């Protein structure tokens, strides 16, 4: 009997992480774009850390933060009478944290590629900053932003190391696809592991293939190019 719970949980985790990183990554990259201050380089290095650290180290640091004795864990416990450690929310957090640098880097590069004269032109035509952002900056940065969205979605979907540290492997509750694959393979159930492998490969392949096809037909900013 195939268990679908890891598939559903993984899709939920990937989409929730995607929402979190798209909002935080895009707004932070936009906000930092034209700002220069002491410590900016340090801040950017910290933001990129989850990309270069082993995921299990990121997971360990998250565990220290949101564990029952950790600063965030204590606030959650004392103020909201709840915990997120070893729940699906911890898996979403882990996915978001490791996917964040990919979104941030892609958004940063995408915004740097936007010709600022076009934004100035919009301003002289009476557009406020909000309208400039939505009608000029975002459409012109769109291909790079979409690339970042796909990368972070796939990264969050495949997250293993940090997830197992903070969400554990509770079958039926916090077991995501990569964890299910690992433990099925360890239990020598290669049929189940292979089935999950097919599903996760199918999802990531469709996401990238679909976006590339879409980008080729709809992309005016970077015509004739796919995203990947």
């Amino acid at each position, binding site marked *: 009997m195939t268990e679908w719970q890891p598939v559903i949980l993984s899709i939920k985790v990937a989409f929730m992480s995607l929402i979190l990183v798209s909002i935080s990554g895009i707004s932070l990259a936009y906000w930092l774009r034209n700002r220069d201050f002491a410590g900016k380089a340090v801040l950017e290095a910290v933001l990129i850390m989850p990309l270069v650290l082993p995921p299990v180290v990121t997971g360990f640091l998250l565990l220290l933060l949101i564990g029952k004795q950790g600063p965030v864990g204590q606030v959650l416990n004392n103020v909201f009478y709840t915990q997120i450690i070893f729940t699906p929310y911890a898996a979403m957090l882990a996915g978001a944290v490791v996917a964040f640098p990919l979104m941030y880097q892609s958004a940063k590069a995408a915004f740097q590629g936007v*010709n600022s004269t076009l934004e100035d*032109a*919009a301003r*002289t*035509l009476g557009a406020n900053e909000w309208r400039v952002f939505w009608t000029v900056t975002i459409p*012109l940065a769109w291909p790079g932003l979409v690339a970042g969205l796909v990368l972070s979605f796939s990264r969050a979907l495949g997250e293993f190391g940090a997830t197992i540290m903070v969400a554990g492997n509770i079958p039926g509750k916090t077991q995501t696809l990569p964890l299910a694959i690992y433990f099925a393979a360890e239990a020598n159930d290669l049929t189940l592991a292979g089935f999950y492998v097919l599903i996760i490969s199918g999802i990531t392949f469709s996401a990238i293939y679909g976006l590339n096809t879409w980008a080729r037909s709809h992309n005016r900013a970077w*015509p004739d190019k796919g995203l990947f």
Partner: protein
Amino acid sequence: MLHVDIKKHLPGFTLDVQFFVENNIAVLFGPSGCGKTTTLRCIAGLIKPDAGEIINNGKTLFSSETQTFVPVNHRRVSYMFQEYALFPHLNVKKNIWYGVKRHDQTAENLYAQLLDLLHIEHLTGRFTDKLSGGEKQRVALARALMAEPEILLLDEPLSALDEDTRCQLQIELKRIQQLWKIPFVLVTHDRNEAKALGDKVIFLE
């Protein structure tokens, strides 16, 4: 009448420029790097001068004395950039309508008039990467005028065009200025163009 009297520290020198423009064409003329474009950017409100004032028809756009700085999107100063800065993700029609506040009959009439004046009716559905230099220039001019500006700034508007197109557009620019009756401030490094277009030529060194 537009009155400009500003100082701006730039790397290597201080830009110090004073002039006024009636409702006609003033040409800022001088070599590259003398601060012509900086002057336009100050008038548009894209950068802030260090001192002085910019007043149009009694309305103060900038004054270091009273700490006035009207933001760029409230100035009603249209700016035609050197490379035209047309939006590549919008077609010609959407480009031209970008600066319109109220989509009413007056705007429709102005749109029809501009398409006719600039001979660009046949281009409205195209994207801007499919336009020639002269066509881009006309579309940029239509877009700038659709926003119903009180001042029009033009940065090297004709420098990227071939000789024939340039002569033709010089005539059209003069005609449009006479129809619109607002100050045009135009930047060029070309002496002949300065003479041909300017009702008044201001030398910057």
